[in-house]
């Protein structure tokens, strides 16, 4: 059997066109989940096929691609996806957020502010913010169409009644352009404010659930809350042990078996740049 060559970025042109049409619809209706005919990809559903299809549909030979998972370039799944595009599209890849034109991410938004020249592609496991309150697709579709979101606030109310706080810490629901409520993917709520008025285009791909949605640049994104229990960013009691940052999301690392802990920046590129800048300052 002869091995067949693959098209640029793996997907055939018809499929890319179909995905781009879905992306355009998504941009035209910010926060609305557009159904699309997700293809079987060479990585399993749940491992980023949605993000990969979106990236494959928009990437061109001159693009520079960065892929992160949990904020890091070197985690196994990020490595695997980056290698996939290097192999099937032969595009330049980078770990430097400022150099990338397309950033595909799982579960984090980069700490470095993005520009209008960039597109952020999120990997989404469950696109439907109402899913855990209402398992039926037929019903959630109607709820979005009629903007019937009371049940979302009921959930937040229950959290406060039970715990004294809203108990959602990631995949925190937000209202886009004052209309649709969306699930921003399992980013920590720490990252939610970055979605609001972002200069970059933000695209969300859910392969298994077959949905694409988008936040156009400079769109209003408001995390759900109550007036008297406003949305609060997570605060850390520590600074990054490597670069000293106090404004980035920190990973907790277990360093010994006596319970020793250390906190380091989740965004590895951000941390490295800060360390390099500090070293340069120290040298001067």
């Amino acid at each position, binding site marked *: 059997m002869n091995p067949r060559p693959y098209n640029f970025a793996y997907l055939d042109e018809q499929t890319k066109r179909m995905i781009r049409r879905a992306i355009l619809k998504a941009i035209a209706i910010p926060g609305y989940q557009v159904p699309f005919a997700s293809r079987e990809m060479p990585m399993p559903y749940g491992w980023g096929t949605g993000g990969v299809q979106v990236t494959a549909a928009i990437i061109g030979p001159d693009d520079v691609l960065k892929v992160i998972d949990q904020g890091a370039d070197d985690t196994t799944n990020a490595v695997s996806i980056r290698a996939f595009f290097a192999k099937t599209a032969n595009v330049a890849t980078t770990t430097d957020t400022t150099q990338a034109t397309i950033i595909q991410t799982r579960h984090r938004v980069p700490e470095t502010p993005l520009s209008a020249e960039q597109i952020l592609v999120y990997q989404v496991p469950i696109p439907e913010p109402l899913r855990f309150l209402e398992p039926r697709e037929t019903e959630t579709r109607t709820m979005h169409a009629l903007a019937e979101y009371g049940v979302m606030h009921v959930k937040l109310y*229950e959290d406060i009644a039970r715990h004294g706080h809203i108990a959602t810490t990631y995949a925190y629901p937000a209202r886009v352009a004052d209309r649709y409520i969306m699930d921003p993917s399992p980013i920590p709520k720490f990252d939610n404010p970055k979605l609001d008025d972002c200069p970059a285009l933000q695209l969300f791909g859910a392969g298994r659930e077959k949905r694409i949605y988008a936040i156009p640049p400079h769109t209003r994104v408001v995390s759900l809350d109550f007036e*008297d229990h406003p949305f609060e960013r997570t605060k850390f009691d520590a600074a990054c042990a490597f670069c000293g940052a106090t404004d980035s999301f920190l990973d907790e690392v277990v360093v010994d078996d006596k319970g020793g802990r250390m906190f380091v920046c989740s965004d590895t590129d951000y941390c490295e740049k800060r360390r390099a800048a500090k070293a340069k300052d120290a040298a001067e």
Partner: protein
Amino acid sequence: MMAPLLSVRGLNKRYGSIVACRDIAFELEEGEALAIVGESGSGKTTLLNLVAGALAADSGEVVYRMRDGAARPLSSLSEAERRALMRTDWGFVHQDASRGLRMNVSAGGNIGERLMAIGGRHYGRIRAAALDWLARVEIAAERVDDPPSTYSGGMRQRLQIARNLVTGPRLVFMDEPTGGLDVSVQARLLDLLRGLIADMGLAAIIVTHDLAVARLLSHRMLVMKQGEVIESGLTDRVLDDPQAPYTQLLVSSVLAA
């Protein structure tokens, strides 16, 4: 003279060869409570569901006077408008309270949901409204964070009522509101309903097979048999001086207290 709040004309519904409702017509004024009385199979619950828009009629029309005064046939309402109506201007109290409640959401959440659905965004005020209503339906305040799955049947029914009335609806549909409850619990619930209907000036359509419920809650009543209205009029008149033979049978069948 204001138009009636609700006007039902020529309502028909069949299931195959069974006639559930035949040519039903009546009017309901604001603040008026109407009982629909009949035995099982009379079509009374079907009629309630037709009028509330939960079932589609084969023919006929239900016209409702909206808050802005416009008389709208229900069939002309979009799904969005109908659902908005169900959340604000109307209430529906089910015989089985678990159908009208979120059983695993706290009582406060159940009552507050409608307020949140119409834009309520202040936790403290929503909670205060919920506590206020719990008091009005005589549920102890400390139960506010308990889900109705931990409540007794009577308490669930009272919670369901609170959940429906929190947005100050003008029309409430009730399907056997006291069905399945102990007699003493029923009496307390009926008393509560009577008070709320009077205090809030509610219009109500109450389906029941229990003439005592009709007597206590309603101003007027319809008697149904095999899909047709065989008698109607002021409740007291119909119960004290029934004209149709079937009504006479019903009234005389009630066990003497």
